[in-house]
């Protein structure tokens, strides 16, 4: 369990994918932080002051200075606490990691929100779209970044491992809610292998809420969860 410290403060929400991404990164870097739980339906004055533009979690405050947006926070964490590195040294490979992280934000996250709100054929189509994005990532990672694993970043997890690895429980959650298989080992073997390796890491294990618990926290499976939004 990470020690708590006043120098670094994370405002987040339980059962929120963006929050857990940031917590995972902090824990992997061994950063001591204080965690502040925000009520999504009743946001604190502090949060609204720290993130007036989007009024959302997660917000990371380092020595009184706030940073918002999970992918930006992840890069910031890597800039401040350089060891162990979450990005490759080579600028070209860094650009590839950034590209795929951006792809997750642009394509994967939105479709994850959408799938659970749809039914029947529409949901099936959305699931196929999602599976397509995973396959695109699989090919890209294999061609441009993979050096044998177990992680995209190599022996140790890096930014993409954090982003996708922390989303694994949400993928499973959506699979349960929608009754569709999204991450198929035969289609995306690398993704499945590094996501599975990620959720087993000692540093992050306790943050990886089992899908059953996520389902319970969101009430009925048919209800609309804000599965992966910052909110």
């Amino acid at each position: 369990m990470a020690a708590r410290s006043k120098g670094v403060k994370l405002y987040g929400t339980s059962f929120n994918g963006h929050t857990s991404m940031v917590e995972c990164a902090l824990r992997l870097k061994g950063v001591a932080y204080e965690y502040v739980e925000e009520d999504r339906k009743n946001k604190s004055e502090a949060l609204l002051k720290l993130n007036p533009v989007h009024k959302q979690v997660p917000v990371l405050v380092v020595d009184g200075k706030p940073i918002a947006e999970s992918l930006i926070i992840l890069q910031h964490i890597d800039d401040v606490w350089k060891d162990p590195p979450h990005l490759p040294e080579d600028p070209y490979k860094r650009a590839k990691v950034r590209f795929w992280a951006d792809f997750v934000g642009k394509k994967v996250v939105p479709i994850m929100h959408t799938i659970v709100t749809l039914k029947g054929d529409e949901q099936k189509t959305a699931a196929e779209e999602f599976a397509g994005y995973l396959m695109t990532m699989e090919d890209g990672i294999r061609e441009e970044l993979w050096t044998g694993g177990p992680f995209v970043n190599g022996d140790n997890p890096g930014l993409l491992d954090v982003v996708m690895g922390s989303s694994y429980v949400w993928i499973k959650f959506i699979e349960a809610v929608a009754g569709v298989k999204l991450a198929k080992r035969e289609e995306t073997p690398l993704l499945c292998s590094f996501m599975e390796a990620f959720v087993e890491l000692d540093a992050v294990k306790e943050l990886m809420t089992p899908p059953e618990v996520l389902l319970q926290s969101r009430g009925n499976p048919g209800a609309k969860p804000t599965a992966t939004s910052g909110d």
Partner: protein
Amino acid sequence: MAPPSDDLKLLGSWASSYTHRVQLALKLKGLAFEYAEEDLADKSPSLLLHNPVYKKVPVLLHRGRPVLESVIILHYLDETWPDVPLVPADPYDRALARFWCHFVDDKLGPAVGAVFASPSEGQAAAVEQVHENLRLVERELREGAFAGRRFFGGDKIGVLDIVLGCGSYWLAVFEDVMEVKLVDPEAFPLFHSWLRDFEEQEEVKAIIPAIDRLLEYARGVRQMMLGLSPQQQ
């Protein structure tokens, strides 16, 4: 030691503000490159090969290897050729610059585009959305981390100036074509003076297309969107 930039090629489009960002960065850093104009209605095999995921410009090819997405390209340029840095050195400044770059691409840019795309009934709402976003930028310039700076990057243009600046010229174009007021200097004095300073930089003047050309282009697109036949040039 920085590698020579003797194998840089940019696939772009003359009216694409994302392309202009990269052209401006290359100019500021003094990097020579080959430019290839893409016809976005008839994309080249090279573009489709190097950007199969989005099929968009700009694409920077360095030694034949593609770097995609304008903000990612700017980071790549800085990391490969560290002279004339564009991305802030301080981690917090850097995070702020990235945050506002994302705001431009995620909120402000689409809001400005919506003004252009909206039918007359939707215009007032679209314009208000732009103003809401500009107010956030204005406040940041007035009271936030950028208060007192000439440019977002400090005394010199940085990555956020490039990202916000290359695209802000559309504001004046849309004001003309759509007959709306988007940047009232009284409502947004700091944004207005920042933009004026940005557009007066020699490198910026060399990159941004002439306003007449942009106006002509925008009028043509607007007419097509409204279902009228485009005027003969």
